[in-house]
């Protein structure tokens, strides 16, 4: 368990056994109960705890959840790994074992590998996204007029249906669409086809992703900034610390865990982009992402083997990134709400 706590996601410290406030809050009575339940191996005194019915009770509660967890998470992962070593087409009863061929193809065929470069656009976008979210979180932690209105406006895009966002921005980037019209109104005339060439299309799509996801980062950061007690600022002011120093030494350290969480979400998010580019361009003009490619391989070209290998690669990368983040930032401080 200690090992799993180390590699656990965000709130694991709270859920783990490391004795945080919440765990501590569970009355002492519970702890006594636990000790009582652990000891019966030594002396079998409390009969009802040892009754067979009592022993299987937790499993009755866990039966359905575990069945679902295994069927829809572990079975797929296991079979995905095994498909990855075959040339299965997803339909026919027979499949050849091809060893590491699929993996060799992914890393050697440039058109299969290029999708990783597309992720670069989204990764760059998420840096912008975190910076923008941080700026507005700090600004809106002050007492401002219309504070709640601005907060709502900034967060709302995160709640909107992805397909609707895709259409809104198809119209936005269209020839003579929203963007062109606004630019004309500002006195800039351009007939640039925003989704016309790979660099511009990917940048535009990454921009949509900033528009969509900044709100979540913003609310996370805002929660963290607001949980800093006001006295800290007052004390700092008395000591003559300016606004920048306050940010640097009070705000920044307190929100570090949330920023690191956002960074990890950004990396795994930019590797698994699917909706926006699939809806807007269908992966045309060099906007194909890793997941679009995998979905096309599996469901359009019936290359289940190759697609599984690709999915395994993505899974490994995401696990690696998560692991690195856990190493760099101990996970005991993400505790916002």
């Amino acid at each position, binding site marked *: 368990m200690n090992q799993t706590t180390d590699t656990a996601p965000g709130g694991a410290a709270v859920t783990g056994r490391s004795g945080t406030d919440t765990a501590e809050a569970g009355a002492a*009575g519970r702890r006594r109960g636990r000790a009582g339940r652990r000891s019966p191996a030594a002396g079998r005194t409390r009969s009802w705890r040892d009754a067979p019915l009592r022993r299987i009770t937790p499993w009755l509660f*866990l039966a359905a959840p575990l069945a679902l967890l295994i069927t829809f*998470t572990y079975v797929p992962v296991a079979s995905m790994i095994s498909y990855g070593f075959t040339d299965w087409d997803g339909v026919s009863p027979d499949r050849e074992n091809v060893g590491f061929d699929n993996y060799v193809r992914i890393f050697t065929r440039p058109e299969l590998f290029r999708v990783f470069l597309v992720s670069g656009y989204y990764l760059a976008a998420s840096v912008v996204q975190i910076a923008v979210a941080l700026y507005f979180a700090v600004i809106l932690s002050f007492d401002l007029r219309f504070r709640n209105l601005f907060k*709502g406006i900034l967060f709302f895009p995160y709640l909107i249906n*992805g397909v609707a966002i895709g259409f809104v921005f198809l119209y936005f980037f269209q020839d003579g669409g929203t963007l062109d*019209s606004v630019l004309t*109104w500002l006195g800039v005339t351009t007939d640039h086809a925003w989704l016309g060439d790979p660099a511009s299309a990917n940048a535009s799509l990454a921009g949509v992703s900033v528009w969509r996801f900044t709100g979540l980062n913003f609310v996370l950061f805002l929660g963290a900034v607001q949980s800093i007690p006001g006295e800290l600022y007052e004390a700092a002011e008395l000591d003559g610390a300016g606004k920048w120093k306050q940010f640097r030494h009070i705000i920044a350290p307190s929100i570090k865990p949330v920023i690191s969480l956002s960074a990890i979400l950004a990396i795994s998010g930019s590797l698994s982009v699917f909706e926006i580019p699939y809806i807007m361009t269908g992966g045309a003009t060099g906007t194909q992402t890793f997941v679009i490619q*995998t979905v096309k391989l599996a469901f359009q070209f019936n290359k*289940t083997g190759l697609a599984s290998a690709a999915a395994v690669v993505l899974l490994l990368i995401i*696990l690696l990134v998560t692991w690195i983040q856990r190493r760099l930032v101990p996970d005991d401080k993400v505790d916002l709400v």
Partner: protein
Amino acid sequence: MTSPDLTAAVKGPRRPRRRLPVGGALTYLSLLVASAVVLIPLAVVFLTSLKTSEEAADGSALSLPGNWFNLDNYVTAFHDGKMLTAFGNTAFILVFSIGGTVVIGSMTAYAVDRFDFRGKKPVMAGFLIATLVPGVTTQVATFQVINGMGLVDTRWAPILLYMGTDIVSVYIFLQFIRGIPVSLDEAARLDGANAFTIYRKIIFPLLKPAIATVVIIKGITTYNDFYIPFLYLHSEDLGTVSTALFRFKGPFGAHWEAISAGAILVIIPTLIVFLLLQRWIYNGFAQGATK
């Protein structure tokens, strides 16, 4: 966010808790620019949805509709775009997957927190490790599982997947259940209640705030999900809000006024829910993302 000492600090006697740094005007300007960036793309689509097809084809994107009460495009979207069926399907999937998630998540949390049993640690680890596996990557193989069950192209495929792969809500319940004193369980047990009665009569009702959080997060993410229905529901009659809207792309091609109406139709329920439940939504998503 709502802890008493903090609200006291905000509303304390020293009026403005913290004054704005450098030029308030610049700050407001940046907020206005950000609001414009968020709102203009949406507003333009809203305007377009009220235009006739001539107005949409000829006029500028920023021009205003001739008749502000022209709802023809919404009728088209509802009728030709099958949005009514789509809302029905989405509602069906929402009810079952949310209900299932609440029951499954709270049962798991109850079993894990209130019992000591052999195999508890592996079970916990099983749930923990599963959070690291991103759903998008495993669909290639999950599809074969669902296919093996003969559920492809039925509404039960998304329902099972939403129910079975939601580990975040297990954590939300787990965190909350820790705050419910065990003495309540013990008292009920002395009165002769069995584990199931305790879960149903005591734990479940006390979990209400956690249930509200899970319902909100789960409801919004399920309503917005495109990937799962896109992969599993192929028939047009089984379209959800997302996939039905996605199908607008074909038949309505360049008819932006109809596509816009469809998009606005999908956004309106979200907007209403957001306006009504703001506070819960902020907290819920902050909680969900950090688990």
